[in-house]
């Protein structure tokens, strides 16, 4: 074996080991509990078979040739999976450029950079495919159990679309670097990842609302209009669906296509990938210039803190992409709200839990960024300001930001139904306060850039935050439909919060 091949195989092993450890750290929150993580994963996968059966079980008996409606539903599902993989792949590519501390070491090594980055591109594709296989396993298992071994071909489709998603992600990211430069690519790539992941579902929901007055995506996919618009059964568009059903020839063509696409991307972009990485690492940047020079403003100490937090939130790439995503998710309910002015749709009730849920989720992220994600913790701690006032200023920032984002929706709702608007406003307030309180009880000292790891630093806080958001969203929805039931869900959610507080590090 030549030394260059040996170096490449060593590098491939290194990449796989890094990916495995990153994944393990995500699962275990940096604690070395490999066995626990694997057992947890197996248990989770086993449990996931139940919802998978509920969602997909009825499709197990599908046999080729399929009618157009079935082809459309399966193809749309595969397209959704592809969009999610693309989103994850774009995120992985930007992470390789910006977050890997080993670029200097790699680029100073005597191995060809084009080869090194080919391995890294392959590693990205592998990690995307591995994650997709993991998530799709319960669904494919249900199909195999219910419909026979021919459904194993669905795993092949996952691999094929994973290869193409990784290839497209790399091409898009490198193109972004070329077009808008390293400084802006990170933010834009994160926004694209968020939009791509959510956009497809939201577009279907919007079409469903506009055409059928429902949030159900299947209403569009199974409609006569979609069937009439769709291409012939022999079209290449249906190849993924046919391959998933067990058409071996089509599956091989898809796999070959995916491999060729990734190979072409490697050939074209691995050298540019290296060049781009050099540009990023040399991006001891003439950073973002703030053209407007403002004079120092007189303010109280808390105002200074609040102003700083608002500026940082406004400039936070994660927050921009997440807010955009939350707002995207709010487009369908907002559209439904708009439709309700012209009709008497009872589906408008659905708007409330969506808004309350979104407010709770966004508050949790905002609260982590402001309370735990303090980059200059020493500075704030040595300021002549009691810690309680620092915390209060930060909580105020979270609540004000949530108010600014959600007030327009609540006001719009007030025109359709004042009672629903009042309940939604109350739900948003309680949901946001609960999520903020959980972040406060579980606060840690961290850098804002560690945001991705926030959900692994405390599993308890993550679950409590999710249960609280879901609980208050359900309570708000039930308050409109069955008030007595709302009292029960409200009490359960409050009890969850009380239990969370009782076992939180700030209480113990």
């Amino acid at each position: 074996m030549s030394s260059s091949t040996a170096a490449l195989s060593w590098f491939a092993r290194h990449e796989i080991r890094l990916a495995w450890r990153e994944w393990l750290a995500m699962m275990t929150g940096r604690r070395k509990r490999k066995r626990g993580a694997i057992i947890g994963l197996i248990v989770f996968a086993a449990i996931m078979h139940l919802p998978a059966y509920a969602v997909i079980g009825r499709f197990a008996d599908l046999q080729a040739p399929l009618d157009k409606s079935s082809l459309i539903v399966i193809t749309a599902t595969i397209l959704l999976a592809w969009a999610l993989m693309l989103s994850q792949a774009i995120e992985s590519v930007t992470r390789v450029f910006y977050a890997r501390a080993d670029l200097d070491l790699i680029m100073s090594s005597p191995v060809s950079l084009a080869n090194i980055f080919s391995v890294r591109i392959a590693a990205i594709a592998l990690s995307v495919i591995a994650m997709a296989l993991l998530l799709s396993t319960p669904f494919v298992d249900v199909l195999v159990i219910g419909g026979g071994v021919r459904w194993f071909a669905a795993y092949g489709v996952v691999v094929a679309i994973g290869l193409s998603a990784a290839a497209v992600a790399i091409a898009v990211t490198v193109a972004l670097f070329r077009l808008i430069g390293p400084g802006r690519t990170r933010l834009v790539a994160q926004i694209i990842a968020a939009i791509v992941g959510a956009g497809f579902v939201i577009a279907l929901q919007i079409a469903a609302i506009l055409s059928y007055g429902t949030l159900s995506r299947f209403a569009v996919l199974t409609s006569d209009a979609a069937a009439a618009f769709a291409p012939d059964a022999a079209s290449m568009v249906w190849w993924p669906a046919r391959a998933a059903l067990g058409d071996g020839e089509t599956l091989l063509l898809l796999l070959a296509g995916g491999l060729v696409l990734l190979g072409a991307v490697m050939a074209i972009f691995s050298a540019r990938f290296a060049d781009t990485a050099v540009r990023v690492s040399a991006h001891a940047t003439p950073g973002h210039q703030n053209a407007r020079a403002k004079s120092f403003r007189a303010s109280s100490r808390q105002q200074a803190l609040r102003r700083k937090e608002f500026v940082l939130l406004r400039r936070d790439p994660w927050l921009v992409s997440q807010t955009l995503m939350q707002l995207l998710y709010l487009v369908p309910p907002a559209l439904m709200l708009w439709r309700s002015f012209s009709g008497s749709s009872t589906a408008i009730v659905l708007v409330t839990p969506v808004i309350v849920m979104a407010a709770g989720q966004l508050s949790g992220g905002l609260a982590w960024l402001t309370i735990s994600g303090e980059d200059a913790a020493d500075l704030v701690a040595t300021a002549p300001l009691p810690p309680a006032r620092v915390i209060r200023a930060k909580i105020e920032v979270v609540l004000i930001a949530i108010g600014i984002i959600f007030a327009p929706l609540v006001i719009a709702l007030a025109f359709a139904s004042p009672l629903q608007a009042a309940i939604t406003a109350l739900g948003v307030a309680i949901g946001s306060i609960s999520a903020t309180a959980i972040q406060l009880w579980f606060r840690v000292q961290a850098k804002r850039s560690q945001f991705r790891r926030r959900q692994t630093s405390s599993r308890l806080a993550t679950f409590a935050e999710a249960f609280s958001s879901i609980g208050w969203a359900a309570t708000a929805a039930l308050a409109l439909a069955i008030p007595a039931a709302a009292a029960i869900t409200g009490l359960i959610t409050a009890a969850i919060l009380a239990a969370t507080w009782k076992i939180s590090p700030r209480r113990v």
Partner: protein
Amino acid sequence: MQTAEPLSALQVRGLTKRFDRLAVDALDLTVRTGEFYALLGPNGAGKTTTLRMVAGLLRPDAGSVSVLGVDALSDPSAAKQITAWVSDEPMIYDKLTPLEYLEFVAGLWGIDPAVSEPSAHQLLISLGLEPHLRERCEGFSKGMRQKVALAGALVHDPRLIILDEPLTGLDAVSARHVKGLLQQRVQGGCTVIMTTHILEVAERMADRIGVIAAGRLVAEGTLAELRQQNGHNDTSLEDMFIALIDVEAAAA
């Protein structure tokens, strides 16, 4: 309760902190007003822990800390108002410009913008950051970040400046700028306490030097006094330091 002497910028008595092991062991330390005091010691000796307790970042297990007559444990806000802390790892906000950072610090210390704004400009210019005043700090080198952090520490005109390895990561020109700035402050009546591993800096800049080992002050004085204690008038600070640490290690 013992009251602070008017001439003491810092008076520490019986300061104790235990983590897994005893980090600071009933430490007594007095730094006079207007003095440049260098605190030396090997890695893990307790220098940073001591200074973090003085700056109000850590709560001591026992002991007292008085900053210019203010009891820092019972009235931390009053003590913090006149103190500045700069750590070896500059903590600034990537998404703020140096000017925005200094505006934030001045606001946090309640300084009138009419005073803080010209002072901020002057500080940043004197540290060679003029071309980067309106550039976000995210692309700054470690040295540039350290200079921004230092400017932040000085913008509220503290009377006691505590610096933990402030010259780490600075190039020779920047280090000279920083040293000059600190000496100016001392000449203006400010007190500086600095930890450093660069013994030459302590030798050239410090009025008095304290050597800390295993959480205790093992030697203190001017360079001449330390030489006298060591019994060799021509010994370098480095030789004395190593000898002191060896003695302590042997005693332990």
